């Protein structure tokens, strides 16, 4: 199955069937920092993914969106 990854954006081929959490483990990715999306739908870690599925693994960590504080230490409050 085709797995789309970000940062940098790329696509890798992984053999199915496989549980979402095993796919993450295989790619050395932490569950808490990623979402697994099958087609257009979010799936849980125990979801079985099959050959032919379109999978996206989306990182959820952001450290640089302009959210109004400086992203360098010391991490001052917005004031």
């Amino acid at each position, binding site marked *: 199955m085709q797995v789309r990854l970000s*940062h940098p954006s790329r696509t890798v081929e992984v053999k199915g069937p496989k549980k979402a959490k095993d796919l993450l483990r295989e790619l050395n990715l932490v569950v808490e*920092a990623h979402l697994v999306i099958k087609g257009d739908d*979010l799936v*849980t870690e125990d979801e079985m993914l099959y050959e032919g599925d379109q999978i996206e693994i989306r990182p959820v960590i952001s450290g640089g969106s302009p959210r109004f504080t*400086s992203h360098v*230490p010391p991490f001052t409050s917005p004031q």
Partner: protein
Amino acid sequence: MTCTKCKTKAVIGLPRHNAAFCKGCFNGFIHDQVARAIKSEWMFGKEAKILVAVSGGKDSLALWDILLKLGYKADALYVNLGIGTYSEESHAKVTQFAETVAAPHGATLHIHTVEQEAGAGIKELAQLIHRPTCSTCGTIKRYQFNRVAIEQQYDVMATGHNLDDEAARLLGNVLHWQEEYLEKQGPSLPASVAGFSKKVKPLFRLAERELAAYAVLNRIDYIVEECPMAKGSKMIQYKEVLNRLETESPGTKQTFYWGFLEKQSRKQPTATTMSEKDRAVLHPCTSCSQPTTAEVCSYCKMMARAKTVAPH
């Protein structure tokens, strides 16, 4: 996995709450958590005029969406930093969200473009005045949000800081023993003096992963790409460490940050002591009249420098 509440198929598991939810129940959970945050920290009332700081990322757009759905009057401000395609793309996502989701709720989007005022994007500006890009960026964003909030008479300013942001920031400040910053790390900062807007973080109970899931489930089109200046930042490193711990022991992040808040609240009525301290040292900038500890505020100083060295 099945939904803890309604037993249909779950779309997300939440180990830190020992729960899993379907889309409907998950949206309910997110809205509840934000409503709880607003109430428990006395952030604002039903009639308040709120200004949301939006970046085009998942957190701030989700925040705007949630506040509107909870029935609040929330407008937003976007600051275009002029960082190449990153700014172009995030700008487009924000405008699209404003037109399709916010406008039907009667909400407005304000836009400030750094290039228009300073004659250059944030990177060039920082080079010109010999300061790191991120600190220049911080000064500009803080200044512009406060300016718009005060000028357009918003009661409160809301930012999309989530549990991960706050836990990572706390970790950074504790590792470096930046004690003086700890007392300003609460989710609700009062308007300490006239000219300073009240600031709140209604997402402090929600993890970054939950907000990304909310955006995906509700088809909020946000910018997944990072600001190029953030690559390898300390903030990201701290978040990665915390997420590794969280995966092993669910609940680590909330225990760390909420535990800190609880300790702070028992220590002293921070709100009053903090604003008293601020009041003692702050007075209006002689150039723009926003509050500052110096005679001329750091924003005005920065702009003045940029103008003297800028090639015309």
